[in-house]
């Protein structure tokens, strides 16, 4: 038998074998199989999702949302919203216990908030962010949240099922969706992001956390509602920062202000005089023997991106650069004769730069732009796109 077919086995037949193996090896892929473990996984995950009640209740603004327990002592991760904007914030656990919370920190870019439940209990069920797997396109997922505020008291929150339809940056719909986060998200085919669902969990069929359900987003262009979750690897660093109390910064970039901010002059770039409300950021001149000169920047280059973020004015460029430490490398992309020219600039080393470890952590916390996060990556968790490409080989 092996004789008959082994020699002529093509890539196509190998793939077919693979499909057959997947089907046999993964009974979870079939809805009717392993029902007990699916029920258990759902029940376990429901226990780690909390109901949050706060401000709202008028003019179509729901006064409730969902949250995730992420530590045994009651840290609750949720979405930053008007619901949290009250003194009377209350969290109800799966078993019906209700408690007050305090706000530990927020991440304005990802629109996250970290709460701490005032409870004695040190053994609360919780999601382990550090152990969270990444999902691939086509994976079956469950959205677990208190959408529409349906569950109250000790009633378990709702569960919806679907698959990951795509992994794509929210940035791809910039302008259409009103979100400040632009990194990769899981797009799902379940109606996961209804009112009250924000802060809920996207989990796999083992009940492991894949992502955090975002707030409702509707395309201004098409009127379509987006159903999505922010992958754990996109916010795990930010959560660590918030937990350590380093992030109550309301500016678009989380983390502390740079101790020694970078200036355009350090790079040797002089922009045209900033006369208009939005002066196009053309380079007026380049200082000799400067990093800019070394990188080949020229007068009349138009600065298009700084570290991947689009720049619309001289003021924006100055501000973007000023958010970096003096020792940071900065990627500056300019338009020259219709072509995009990429450069990387670093101010002259002053010899007192901090250790690389600190640098990388501040980088992760500051990862407001998706391009940097996606291509440079935070160590440990591969970007979802990469995982997707590996999927066919990894599954068995």
């Amino acid at each position, binding site marked *: 038998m092996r004789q008959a*077919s082994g020699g002529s*086995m093509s890539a196509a037949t190998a793939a077919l*074998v*693979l*499909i057959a193996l997947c*089907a*046999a090896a993964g009974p979870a892929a079939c*809805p009717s199989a392993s029902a007990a473990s699916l029920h258990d996984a759902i029940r376990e995950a429901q226990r780690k999702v909390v109901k949050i009640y706060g401000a709202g209740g008028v003019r179509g603004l729901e006064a409730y949302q969902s949250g995730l327990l992420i530590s045994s002592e009651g840290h609750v991760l949720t979405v930053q919203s008007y619901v949290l904007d009250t003194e009377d914030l209350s969290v109800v656990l799966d078993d019906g216990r209700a408690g007050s919370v305090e706000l530990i920190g927020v991440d304005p870019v990802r629109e996250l908030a970290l709460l701490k439940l005032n409870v004695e209990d040190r053994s609360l069920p919780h999601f382990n962010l550090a152990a969270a797997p990444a999902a691939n396109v086509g994976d079956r997922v469950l959205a677990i949240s208190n959408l529409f505020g349906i*569950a109250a008291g000790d009633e378990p929150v709702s569960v919806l099922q679907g698959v990951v339809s795509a992994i794509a940056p929210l940035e791809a719909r910039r302008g259409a969706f009103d979100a400040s986060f632009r990194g990769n998200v899981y797009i799902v085919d379940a109606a996961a992001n209804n009112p009250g669902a924000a802060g809920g969990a996207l989990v796999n069929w083992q009940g492991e956390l894949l992502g955090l359900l975002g707030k409702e987003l509707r395309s201004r262009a098409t009127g379509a*509602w987006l159903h999505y979750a922010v992958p754990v690897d996109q916010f795990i660093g930010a959560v660590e920062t918030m937990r350590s109390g380093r992030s109550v910064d309301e500016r678009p970039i989380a983390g502390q202000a740079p101790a020694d901010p970078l200036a355009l002059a350090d790079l040797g770039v002089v922009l045209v005089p900033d006369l208009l409300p939005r002066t196009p950021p053309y380079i007026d001149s380049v200082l000799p023997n400067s990093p800019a000169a070394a990188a080949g920047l020229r007068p009349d280059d138009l600065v298009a991106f700084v570290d991947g973020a689009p720049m619309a004015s001289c003021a924006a460029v100055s501000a973007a650069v000023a958010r970096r430490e003096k020792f940071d490398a900065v990627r500056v992309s300019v338009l020259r004769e219709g072509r995009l020219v990429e450069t990387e600039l670093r101010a002259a080393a002053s010899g007192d730069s901090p250790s690389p470890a600190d640098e990388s952590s501040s980088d992760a916390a500051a990862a407001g732009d998706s391009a940097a996060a996606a291509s440079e990556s935070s160590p440990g968790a591969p970007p979802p796109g990469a995982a997707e490409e590996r999927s066919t080989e990894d599954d068995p």
Partner: protein
Amino acid sequence: MSRALYLLAVAVSWGVADVYGAAAPDPAVLAAQDARTAAIAKASAATVSIFDATGAGGGSGVLISPDGFALTNFHVTAPCGPAMKCGLNDGKLYDAVIVGIDPVGDLALIQLLGRDDFPVAEIADSDKVRAGDWAFAAGNPFLLADDFSPTITFGMISGVHRYQEPAGTLLEYTDCLQTDAAINPGNSGGPLFDAQGRLIGVNGRASFEKRGRVNVGVGYAISINQAMRFLGHLKSGRIVDHATLGATVATRDDGRVAVDDILETSDAFRRGLQYGDVLVRFADRDITTANAFKNVLGVYPSGWRVPVVWRRDGETFTADVRLMGVHDEAELAALVQQEESNPSEPQPGDAPPPDDEQDERPRPKLPIPGLDGLAKNRTLPKAVAERYIARPGYANYWYNDQAQQRLWGRYLERTSLDEAGYDWQLQGALETGGSFTLAISETQADLALPTGRFLASFAEDLSQQLSPPRSGGLLVALHAWQRLLDRGLRRYGEVYYLGRLPHGPDNRVEDCLVGYFEGMETRYFFADDGDLTGVELFAADDADPCEITFSDFAEHAGRRLPRRWLVRHGDGVFAELVIADWTIADPAAGAKAEEK
């Protein structure tokens, strides 16, 4: 290549014959698919497409008995009037008639006509449904199916024991199932099935809010257990009411659920429930929140009796409590009329959904043959007219009349008591010791018990004749029974069929006839075999009834008679009589007495 060989080796070791064979789907997957298509085929046959008389709207339904009874939503039948056209997936259109409605629970029972072998849905126990179960809805969303083959939408149970607020006091969804299987306009009244194709609920509602009237992953189904509990009532042709405890509860600061208001006319109050008592269990469910109580309460019809457990000062109390109606009859009838002319809330029923902005335009005509005639000609189809009697307080009195005659006719045939008259002499023993004698006639009764001798005169105001004391009116109750035997259903006073509800010490669900004469309500309970198992006399609305439970039936002089009578009143047993001898005077004499 080494990987390919490895994979091949694995395939071989699993018994796959060759590489081309390995391309065939896994047998487990195929089996699951076969099971699913079989479940859908079975479920589809019992799914009904319902169209209203104008052909402009409709909904869905599900057949539950071969003689054509089908469940749907009240808000589907409300605009239809007494007649509907119903399509099945055999492609045929059947006449259907309204049977009974439950406007609070948004349920309606209709009967499809013309066959006695309709396909029916297999009924599951919806209390066993759990979040995470697979489920599918069948129905006619957007009236897509010209051939009445239902649209199937597959999904998961998102939650159980859900509560959705009513609109006013109608259309309340309690203890319902929540699913992400798509529920759209036109799905209303249609079935929700489990993965095996067994009926677990009746779809009727969805959360929409700002996203327009299409599915957003949150649909609700009335649990089939609730529907089946109401079925006996719905078959009475009445407008069925839901129940209230006669007390309200609130969740206290300490998390306990306590009575914060109670009607002194309620059975709960008479059973000892007081202001401030902590409710522990209700109808065999733990009550942990005020919501949970509201949730459980909503699945019971008015008049149902449920066990209640409460605590006061560390002491636990238990009692079976009769639930009272939420509305009085006239109030409910008025609300129904209002709902029929002016629906209160957008529901996923009445498809096709009109565009809000374009509501004025003529509604699209359905391309379904057979509906045109119905739209033009509002006279009822013959088959429907034969089974429809309009009467205030009823959805369709014909069914009530039928049930009365069926129960009473079977009872008389079984017992030969129709000529028994009023003159009875009984004697026997009390279960607690001692003996008794009873002499009863059309005008008076004389009961001798070890505790004394008790008289009643039926010529006087009966409300003053409730002897013996602490029986609740045993002698008047017996008189009422004799009156029904003598005069029959038509000349007794007012008689109607209530439906099926729990009765007796073991709370068995039985048929109940209600009779009124001289301002007193008497309930007659019938076992499924036709025996009269009990009589309950309510001397006043706010008083405990005299409850007589009959058992130990035996032939006696050509008649079937109960030889053991358990008489209860309030919390206690008044007496248990064991009859040794029962003399019924010459029937002719009884007939003569009647002529006078």
